[in-house]
């Protein structure tokens, strides 16, 4: 089981954490929601729960709860730009289909 992160994404998370002033790392998760069944969670982490698994990439902690990990195994988190818009992108090999905008997906 593993979750990875590109150098660019890690750099962005490091900067965000510094600006925020606190936080253990970045939480990746999956929850039931949205038009195609599941949606990604991307949050700062202040408290690591007992149920959480921690992966370290380029010096940044990625925290995933064990249930979400089932749907995220092998995911690579990337940071990119599309026109003026920039943000994080999940390259998740488990995804079978997603809604038009890609904000929710099915597994």
């Amino acid at each position, binding site marked *: 089981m593993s979750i990875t992160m590109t150098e660019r994404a890690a750099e962005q998370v490091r*900067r965000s954490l510094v600006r925020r002033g606190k936080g253990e790392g970045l*939480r990746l998760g999956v929850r039931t929601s*949205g038009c195609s069944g599941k949606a990604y*969670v991307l949050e*700062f982490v202040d408290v690591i729960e007992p149920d959480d698994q921690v992966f370290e990439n380029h010096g940044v902690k990625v925290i995933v709860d064990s249930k979400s990990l089932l749907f995220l195994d092998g995911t690579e988190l990337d940071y990119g730009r599309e026109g*003026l818009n920039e943000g*994080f992108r999940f390259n998740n090999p488990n995804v079978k289909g997603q809604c038009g905008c890609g*904000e929710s997906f099915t597994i």
Partner: protein
Amino acid sequence: MALLQISEPGQSTAPHQHRLAVGIDLGTTNSLVASVRSGMADTLPDAEGRHLLPSVVRYFGNAQPLVGEQALADAATDPFNTIASVKRLMGRGLDDVKTLGGALPYNFEPGSGMPRISTAAGPVSPVEVSAEILRVLKLRAELALGGELSGAVITVPAYFDDSQRQATKDAGRLAGLTVLRLLNEPTAAAVAYGLDKKAEGIFAIYDLGGGTFDLSILRLNQGVFEVLATAGDSALGGDDMDHAIAHWMLQQAGVDASADPRIARRALRDARKAKHVLSDAPWAEVSMTRPDGSVWQGRLGQEEFAALVDPIIGRTAAPCRKAMRDAGIAPADITEVVLVGGSTRMPRVRQRAADIFGRTPLADIDPDRVVAIGAAIQADVLAGNKSSEEMLLLDVIPLSLGIEIMGGMVEKIIPRNSTIPVAKAQDFTTFKDGQTAMAIHVLQGERDLVSHCRSLARFELRGIPPMVAGAGRVRVTFQIDADGLLSVSAQELTSGVASNVTVKPSYGLSDDEIERMLRDSIVHALEDNDVRSLRERQVEADRVVAAVESALASDGAALLSAQERASIDGELARLRSLRAGGDAAGIREGIDALDRVTQEFAARRMNAGIGRALSGHRLDEFG
């Protein structure tokens, strides 16, 4: 797939429900838009990477208006159709505009009221010009954030009056923005530095831009910023320094620029460059091509530079002293000084500000962007992207708001210290059979009785269809927008008839009065409670008496024996006399007694199957 941003713990939004909110600094010279992404507030650049959008709009006869750099470049060639500095006209009448002086080169349409500028595209109002600027920023933000905006916070100078604020809001709406709130520019700068996280303090915001200087003194108390004083000079800024340097260059080169405005423009451009260079370097190389083609070359050192700009920078001292005097504070009382505006990048300006206030000013955030960044942080909170504990308490209502209910009592709808904007609704029922109107009396204050509160407005809801008491349901909604404007609406829910009124609750109330009203409510708390419970019993007694009388009138003769009738009449009379007295417990007991002697009567009325829809309600009311 979609690009995602990092949320605060537990604040992830459902797909398609991201609340994208921006802060907009709608400036006299330049405007900016900023947003919070992954916890970081920053201004958003356009496709060419430029953050500042010149607040200039050029109109055409047959094409869409042009906004920004290109319009600014065209200002010289098409001055009548190219509108700059429109912020100075916002919310002004035509008469005010005339007194602003000959500095405005535009042709105004004749007529009274709102000034309208004649352009190739027809007459345009300052609100419409501002809306064009906002539209460009909105589009930029939607492209950068990848979705539609749910709302925006727009900043205004602290000294803007109600009509100038309203005009700014109108411009936002015209541009298709949901204006979450207008925020004072100095407050936005303070928020950008996180000063709102402190418990309390007094802050001086020193804002020296291209053409204006504003000094605001803010007091933070329990999360609420209050503007203590503002002062400034609407014709003082970096442009004056550019002129002084350009004048020196022309003098040194022995050139008379009055013959050729192009030489003057070039000199101004080079002067600005030299000014920027001198922020870091010990001297700046300057040159000028004379009309005869020969070239003058010179060097502007820090000493001459200081001699040129110091008199201009020195003019900021008087407004600073005036504002401190107006606020009744000394430099030692000031917790922090915040620098805003591009001209505060100059070390000499920073030094001067430090000298005036006797402390090193905060200057880590880009002074051109700090206002937009503060507005973005506020917009993010208002859009609901932060947990409520982190909610900035920027504005609260000082006193509770409510309406009068039966018995001369006040029912509070919005409690004091609620953060605004806020909306709350409560349902009320009709009190009398066949009641067709309801008077809504809007009150402000902490006391329980109408006579101890402040009356804000009265209006009537008419056209309620005749119904039995309690069947008509009226929903009263109190809504306070971010600018403190209260609107109260009442709607009868079965028929849909509605009515409303708008008032400004803060109008005419001083801090002392608010404090007195609060103190009174504490001093009289117990006494108010007793009066309230007595009034409540009296109202209940009135209602029960009316209901029993109405039932007796319709069915008493048919369903009651003379003896039964006499005992009910006896209890009725006793309750009436108890009600006239001042004993709440006695009235309660009288109501219970009447209830007991009428129970059999009520049961018989039901059983008699008198098909009035109201009988069910009657039973409830006796209970």
